[in-house]
């Protein structure tokens, strides 16, 4: 057998441990005889001083520690008081000020773990406190100095997804003077908001707010828009991300094309326009996404193009280029903001409320395209079966939300969306009857409740209940059998058209980018933030931030504020130019490691890699200090600093002693 890794410290450096037992007023002294503990601890080896003070965390208490460190030149400090969760940073800073490495500090909890839970057994509590501090002293003897390392940060940012949140984040970062790559999968920036007609609560036209922002983003010198592009690979860590972006072939040269639509007119192929108009109306094989698109450029849908050449003949500038190929570019960025948005819940599979069975049951997004002035019907609301303007329209709330069969969460914007649409119908067609069938109307923010009252004043009918059964009569009108739980009346409501107020889901297409970035996935399918309150737009991966619908269903104002939040959190790194990484990380002992690579798949942060000549390489910047790879390692070569095996075992051994001690 080899020489055992000693749990006693034989380093040349003479150990001088200072133990500070806190009374915390009566909180600890009430049950623990602190002087007895201090006396016992002073008899232990390597303990230079063991003192009791009333409030160690107070300034006076901290000064006493600093004085003791200097006068008795202590090289280890132990404080036995409350919980490290709150006070460890304070004492680490105090110890550092006195010139001692902050990791040569050991914290023993004798309040929450001892005095407060043994309030009436003073003798037991004192004995336990002695043993806890003895364990602390054993560990303190084995602590080693550590430095949290600094990593240089490339002062460029990557924003993935150019919806309203992405654009806001890109503009904020750009305005702070940093270069931003704005990568958008679709042919134009703008995202879902570009499809909406009006937005609550001000009912101002959606594209009128969005358009100027899109132009501003396009004009911002620090923002480079990469439309119709997708992120393929992301490597590296905070401050040093290497990103590979694929620019999908448009078969149109965007430097030559001016978006003049002359090619579109000549194109003989026409298909329903699903991507933007939810299938209402059509688009050609070559098309410009929508009138206000940025970049205002055409693109060709190769899957339906019949290569007739009509478009290239029609284009005087010769912008059409049939054998264009995907191109790639490699970016180096310091931070990444992910706002890849949402999808509308698709009621088709479970035929919610008759959707897909009856023509006149449509979703909110389809309604948005109908009522939109630049939409396929130029703003005329008509019903799909006979393209006639429906008199009686009903909105069904919480479709695909707050429902155990689909999604249990509330999608937060559908109530306000229906109120808005109902008001628009009443303004456009005063003689129509509008019903909103709801469980609860949720109007939480500024002017939302007033918006709700205005809707009531326009005598929109609110039925507290949802259709139990939906059928269609011979004129293809929708019969909704509904009970109003406020009046307990059941009625068969006949409607010309029914709009399902659908919620939001995390799009399948974003699963790829989530896995590339290794951001974890919450139970509801959206991306998970580091902490709901402490770090709402951070992820557990330093330097990667999420905002807007990517992080969960929310309305536009909330999304825009999260866009700015991401920008603020991201530019912390860009502004400082360096990032502090975790001090407690992993280290490998080269001559014990047998290269079995068991540890590499263990790390959720990809901090372990085998370099090309087969040796283990540790990216300390990525290591979060959880230590699971140290357990996976069969040889004990991988050691988590500050929680090394001999440090933990020294504590385990000190729990026990010979009886007469």
């Amino acid at each position, binding site marked *: *057998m080899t020489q055992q*890794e000693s749990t006693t410290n034989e380093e040349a450096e003479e150990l001088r441990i200072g133990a500070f037992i806190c009374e915390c007023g009566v909180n600890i002294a009430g049950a623990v005889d602190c002087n007895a503990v201090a006396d016992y601890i002073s008899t232990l080896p390597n303990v230079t001083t063991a003192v009791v003070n009333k409030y160690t965390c107070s300034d006076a208490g901290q000064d006493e520690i600093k004085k003791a460190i200097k006068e008795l030149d202590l090289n280890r400090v132990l404080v036995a008081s409350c919980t490290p969760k709150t006070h460890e940073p304070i004492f680490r800073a105090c110890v550092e000020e006195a010139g001692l490495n902050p990791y040569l500090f050991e914290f023993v909890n004798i309040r929450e773990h001892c005095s407060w839970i043994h309030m009436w057994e003073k003798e037991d509590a004192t004995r336990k406190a002695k043993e806890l501090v003895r364990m602390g002293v054993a560990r303190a003897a084995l602590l080693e100095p550590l430095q949290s390392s600094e990593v240089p940060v490339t002062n460029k940012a990557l924003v993935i997804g150019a919806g309203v949140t992405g654009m806001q984040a890109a503009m904020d970062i750009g305005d702070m003077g940093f270069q931003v790559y704005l990568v958008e999968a679709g042919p134009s920036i703008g995202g879902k908001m570009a499809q909406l007609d009006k937005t609550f609560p001000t009912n101002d036209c959606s594209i009128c707010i969005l358009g100027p922002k899109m132009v501003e983003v396009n004009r911002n010198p620090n923002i480079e828009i990469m439309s119709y592009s997708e992120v393929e690979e992301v490597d590296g860590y905070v401050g040093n991300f290497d990103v590979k972006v694929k620019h999908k072939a448009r078969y149109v040269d965007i430097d030559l094309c001016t978006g003049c639509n002359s090619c579109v007119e000549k194109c003989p192929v026409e298909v329903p326009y699903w991507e933007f108009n939810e299938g209402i109306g059509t688009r050609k094989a070559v098309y410009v996404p929508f009138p206000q698109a940025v970049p205002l450029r055409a693109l060709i849908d190769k899957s339906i193009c019949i290569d007739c050449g009509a478009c290239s003949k029609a284009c005087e500038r010769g912008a059409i280029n049939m054998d264009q190929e995907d191109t790639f570019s490699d970016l180096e960025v310091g931070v990444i903001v992910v706002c890849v948005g949402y999808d509308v819940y698709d009621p088709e599979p479970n035929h919610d409320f008759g959707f897909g069975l009856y023509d006149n049951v449509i979703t909110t997004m389809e309604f948005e395209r109908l009522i939109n002035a630049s939409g396929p019907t130029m703003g005329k609301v008509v019903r799909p079966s006979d393209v006639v303007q429906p008199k009686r329209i009903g909105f069904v709330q919480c479709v695909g939300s707050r429902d155990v069969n689909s999604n249990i969460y509330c999608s937060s914007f559908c109530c306000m969306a229906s109120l808005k649409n109902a008001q628009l119908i009443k303004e456009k067609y005063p003689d129509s009857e509008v019903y909103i069938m709801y469980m609860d109307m949720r109007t939480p923010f500024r002017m939302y409740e007033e918006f709700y009252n205005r809707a009531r004043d326009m005598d929109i009918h609110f039925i507290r209940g949802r259709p139990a059964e939906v059928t269609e009569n011979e004129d293809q009108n929708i019969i909704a059998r509904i009970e109003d739980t406020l009046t307990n009346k059941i009625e068969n409501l006949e409607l010309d058209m029914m709009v399902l107020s659908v919620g939001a889901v995390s799009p399948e297409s974003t699963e790829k980018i989530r896995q590339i970035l290794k951001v974890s996935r919450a139970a509801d399918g959206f991306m998970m933030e580091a902490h709901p309150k402490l770090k709402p737009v951070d992820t557990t991966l330093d330097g990667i931030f999420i905002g807007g619908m990517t992080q969960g269903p929310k309305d536009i104002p909330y999304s825009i504020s999260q866009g700015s939040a991401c920008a603020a959190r991201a530019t912390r790194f860009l502004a400082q130019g360096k990032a502090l990484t975790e001090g407690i990380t992993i280290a490998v002992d080269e001559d014990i490691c047998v290269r079995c690579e068991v540890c590499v798949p263990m790390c959720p942060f990809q901090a372990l890699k085998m370099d090309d000549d087969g040796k283990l390489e540790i990216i300390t910047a990525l290591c979060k200090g959880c230590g699971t790879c140290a357990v996976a390692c*069969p040889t004990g070569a991988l050691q988590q600093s500050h929680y090394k095996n001999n440090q933990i075992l020294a504590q385990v051994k000190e729990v026990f002693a010979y009886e007469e001690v």
Partner: protein
Amino acid sequence: MVEVGDKLVGYATDDEVRKRGASGGLVTAVLAAALEKGMVESVVVLKHIDEYEAVPIITDDVEEVLASTGSMHSVPVNLAKYAVDRKVAMPGKPCDIKAVIEQSKRNKIDLDNTYLVGLNCGGTMPPVLTKQMLIEMYDIDPEDVVGEDIEKGKLIYRTKDGNEKAISIEELEEAGFGRRKNCQYCQLKIPTNSDLACGNWGVIGDLAGSATFCEVMNEKGKRLIENAVEAGRIEVEPASDKAIAIREKVNGVMVKMGETTQEKVFTQMPDEERLPYYREALADCIDCGGCKLACPVCSCGDDAKCTLFHNLGDNYKMSMFHLVRLLHLSDSCIGCGQCTDVCPVDIPITRIQMSFSIPAQTRLNYKPGMNADEKPPFFEVMIQ
């Protein structure tokens, strides 16, 4: 001309090799051909010393390969560790092949450049005890023995003066002799995890004793056979259905014997008796580390979690070294018995380890040493 899955009967073309071989010398010829044709840099073989002793050597000299023919039932050595970090071909009993595959799972052997010629194995015997058995049960002088074989549950010895003597394995093992304890409950008799599974089971009719039954298990096996045929070292022909059936039957009998013995040996003790049994069994341990050194599955170096945090000076009632090893090998122990062989105080370590490994491996439905892609569950905690 040869496909994966073919079942063949063949022999070495060189009569010398064929005669000296246990049955046909095909294995030796295939190995020699692999070396000659540069498929491998060296070959691991057993250098013959006497009927009861042979030492594994790594050779790049064809003559030494040819000299190593003949099966050696009383040389219970595991060859896996000699293939580490080398480009070798090697013969192997099922437990040798299992150990090579386990080493490949731990990145110590690259299976692509390790050619495994498997040998059927009815079980091996401890040399010193075997000599004692020959004197007491067979009344034969160990020095006169020229060959031995396991056939139809009987252990047969041939002596210089030409006659044979056979005693049933059951009878021998009742008297405390016969095969090593772990071989008695081993259930892999035909090395289906190797590239070529060779043996004399199923060699019938006039070829009996002078040909080898050989099943091509994978692409590498196919290349080995074709290479040996091209080199003119062997001749093969498809095995008859009768031969195949007989081989299956013999295998079935031997495996059944293993299963029943395993049931008997590993009957679970009542709860309160187990800890005293384990403490008593491990009490004499002198911490020599021989079992760790001999274990062909262990790939840690001298320093590992079982040795680094264990010390002679501990006052523990059980050895931390053994507790850590029992856990680290609970999924990977292949029951090869090397640890019991080398334990200076005769602790039945294989039996103790298997009493932990069998429940763990059954729970996980994981068979160590059979499939190189199945990573050991204890260490490969794969979280997607």
